[in-house]
């Protein structure tokens, strides 16, 4: 662990500070634009634009003979726009699919860029060291001027995102609806592409052609795990991107002489991994816990239903072995379910010979009755979903709701009786007749 002293020394070095602020600004702006690209399913477009920028930058250098970030930016934007037009033309006018078109444009543009790069080298303009940086990036060489450019571009991107937030949101979630409202969706899409090019180009210098893709996609993919809201996702994506930049830069100053760009990518990947596992709603851990809970509850319900149905039919006692033969439950889960029901005070176990008989308590019968009734009401509702209506189903997920709405209960009861599925036996303890006296 680094001591506070090391961190202080680290922060007091002006050069490191420039690099740190540069990479953080970079992560921030790529994170914001990347979130839109991610939602538009354009993640690979970042890859293409990063490669396609090379010929533009080379031509800018050949024409101006100067290593100026502004001209590089213009050249990269022009060739990026050309690349995305070419992809559109290829997919629209031939049977080539999008992914092939992406790979094709990426490699051909990059190959052309390499040709130009070697041309520049052979002409001996000498001063092409800045172009070499393009390939791998060199955050360690970031100087004040670069950081100022990065900073102003980052601010620009943030302001534009803020101003066009509603339009971009529409573009990401329902472009067709936006068009019907009269928004110029194609122009907006191109505009977003332009912003993506800008984000890619300012990243190239620090992270290099491949790694800049990670700065665009990975923080956005990580942020998506934590929230369902676009505005929060944008903020999170920016924060995670900035954090990756800071972490990567910090790691690279620890010694070992490791390159900053790849370390930033590894930091971003690590954050993505953490998000994937630990995010509260969509994370793997949360999903696994949810699944385990559902399995647990289903097992308990199955036992209660079996007890109730045996009683309803007037059949004999139910043993643990009966439950095991009827349901495909692992013996561990079955034991757990029985234990939980006993703990709730809903069932009792009596040993009879080598098997064990399960009987419900008063509370248990009531719970069983309620659960069976609910299950059967849901069952007839599903059979007559179109006639009965009522929103048992959640409109978004399609999952069934816990509560059956009051207003359709009478109809459902009639249907229950029609199908002969009404509960035949009612435990005496049931106080609140849910059916509202329609029965009979």
């Amino acid at each position, binding site marked *: 662990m680094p001591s506070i002293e090391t961190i202080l020394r680290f922060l007091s070095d002006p050069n490191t500070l420039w690099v740190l602020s540069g990479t953080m600004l970079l992560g921030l702006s790529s994170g914001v634009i990347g979130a839109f690209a991610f939602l538009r399913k354009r993640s690979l477009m970042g890859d293409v634009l990063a490669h396609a920028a090379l010929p533009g930058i080379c031509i800018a250098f050949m024409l101006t003979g100067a290593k100026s970030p502004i001209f590089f930016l213009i050249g990269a934007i022009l060739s990026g726009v050309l690349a995305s037009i070419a992809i559109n033309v290829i997919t629209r006018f031939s049977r080539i699919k999008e992914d*092939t078109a992406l790979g*094709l444009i990426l490699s*051909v543009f990059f190959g052309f860029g390499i040709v130009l790069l070697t041309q520049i080298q052979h002409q001996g303009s000498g001063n092409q060291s800045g172009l070499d940086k393009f390939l791998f990036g060199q955050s360690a060489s970031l100087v004040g001027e670069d950081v100022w450019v990065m900073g102003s571009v980052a601010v620009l991107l943030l302001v534009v995102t803020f101003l066009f937030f509603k339009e971009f949101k529409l573009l990401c979630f329902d472009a067709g609806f936006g068009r019907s409202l009269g928004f110029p969706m194609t122009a907006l899409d191109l505009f977003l592409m332009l912003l993506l090019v800008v984000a890619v180009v300012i990243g190239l210098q620090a992270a290099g052609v491949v790694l800049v893709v990670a700065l665009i996609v*990975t923080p956005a993919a990580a942020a998506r795990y934590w929230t369902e809201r676009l505005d929060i996702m944008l903020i999170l994506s920016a924060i995670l991107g900035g954090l990756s930049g800071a972490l990567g830069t910090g790691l690279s100053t620890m010694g070992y002489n490791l390159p900053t760009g790849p370390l930033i990518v590894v930091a971003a990947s690590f954050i993505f991994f953490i998000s994937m596992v630990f995010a509260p709603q969509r994370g793997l851990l949360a999903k696994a816990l949810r699944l385990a809970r559902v399995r647990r509850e289903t097992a308990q319900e199955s036992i209660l239903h079996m007890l109730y149905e045996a009683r309803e039919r007037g059949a004999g006692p139910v043993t643990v072995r009966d439950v095991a033969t009827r349901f495909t439950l692992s013996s561990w889960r079955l034991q757990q379910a029985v234990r939980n029901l006993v703990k709730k005070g809903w069932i009792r176990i009596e040993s009879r010979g080598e098997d064990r008989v399960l009987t419900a308590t008063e509370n248990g019968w009531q719970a069983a009755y309620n659960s069976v009734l609910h299950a059967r009401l849901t069952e007839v509702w599903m059979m007559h979903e179109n006639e009965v209506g009522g929103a048992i189903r959640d409109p978004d997920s399609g999952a069934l709701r816990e509560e059956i709405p009051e207003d359709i209960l009478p109809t459902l009861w009639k249907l229950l009786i029609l199908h002969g599925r009404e509960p035949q036996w009612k435990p005496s303890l049931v106080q609140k007749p849910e059916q509202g006296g329609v029965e009979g």
Partner: protein
Amino acid sequence: MGMTIIITGAMVAIACGFLGCFLILRRLAMVGDAISHAVLPGIVVAYLISGTKDSVWMLLGAAAFGLLCTFLIQILSQQGVQHDAAISVTFTFLFAVGVILVSLYTRQVHLDLDHVLYGEIAYVPFNTWTLFGWEAGPRAMWIVGAALFLSLVVVGLLYKEFKVVAFDPQMAAALGIPVLLIHYLLMGLVSVTTVASFESVGAILVVAMLIVPGATAYLLTDKLEWMLAISALVGILSSIFGYWISLWLDASIAGSMTVAAGLLFVCAFLFSPLHGVVTRWIVRRSMRLAAIKGGEG
């Protein structure tokens, strides 16, 4: 000397284009791109373990990491990450790990990042193999040739299976073909071929050879056998024209070959007898004229 370069370039283009046809049909072109980056750590690890630049180890390491990359993409997609994002996240991570490994061990390893990634086909003729005193010719040619041979044997033996999986994976599964196994086999071959081609054309230009000849062939025919043959032809032509362009412009040979392949694609895109933009326009126009004439008469 020029002949050696042209032949090596053509062999790379044939080996990559052959597998590229299957990638294109299965819409996995960008996965091919991802693999060609993700094998970098495999090369370094193989180098560190074996301690030699022995190509067999490198091919094994690359195949392992190529498969790992495919596997990770699959897992992330199954976990609900969009497919395009899953590809980007996976390959950038593996590539970053590779670059870090290279710079960590750069003193012990003498692995030149520029060399691995950008290759230099111009050096191919000088790097020869001598076996028991017998001058066997350029090393790169043997390695690429071996990779091509491997692909031809594997795909040749399982040709029907590869074909059905390429066109209709669902039907293949219904027929009892192990789709996943074929998928991983293809990806393993792609990884091996990628690494075999690194030395001559470099990682990123391998992508061009994976995709461009296959895409060109895809525009010219509807039959897989013809597509494979045409992609090989396009590869050979790209190599010849590319070498010529590089002499003319005094520029990178591999880059020029890519540009040549791109130009051939543009020709097919415009003038393919089946799907060309200009061809279709002419056909439509003559049909319209015929219809007008028919209406008049």
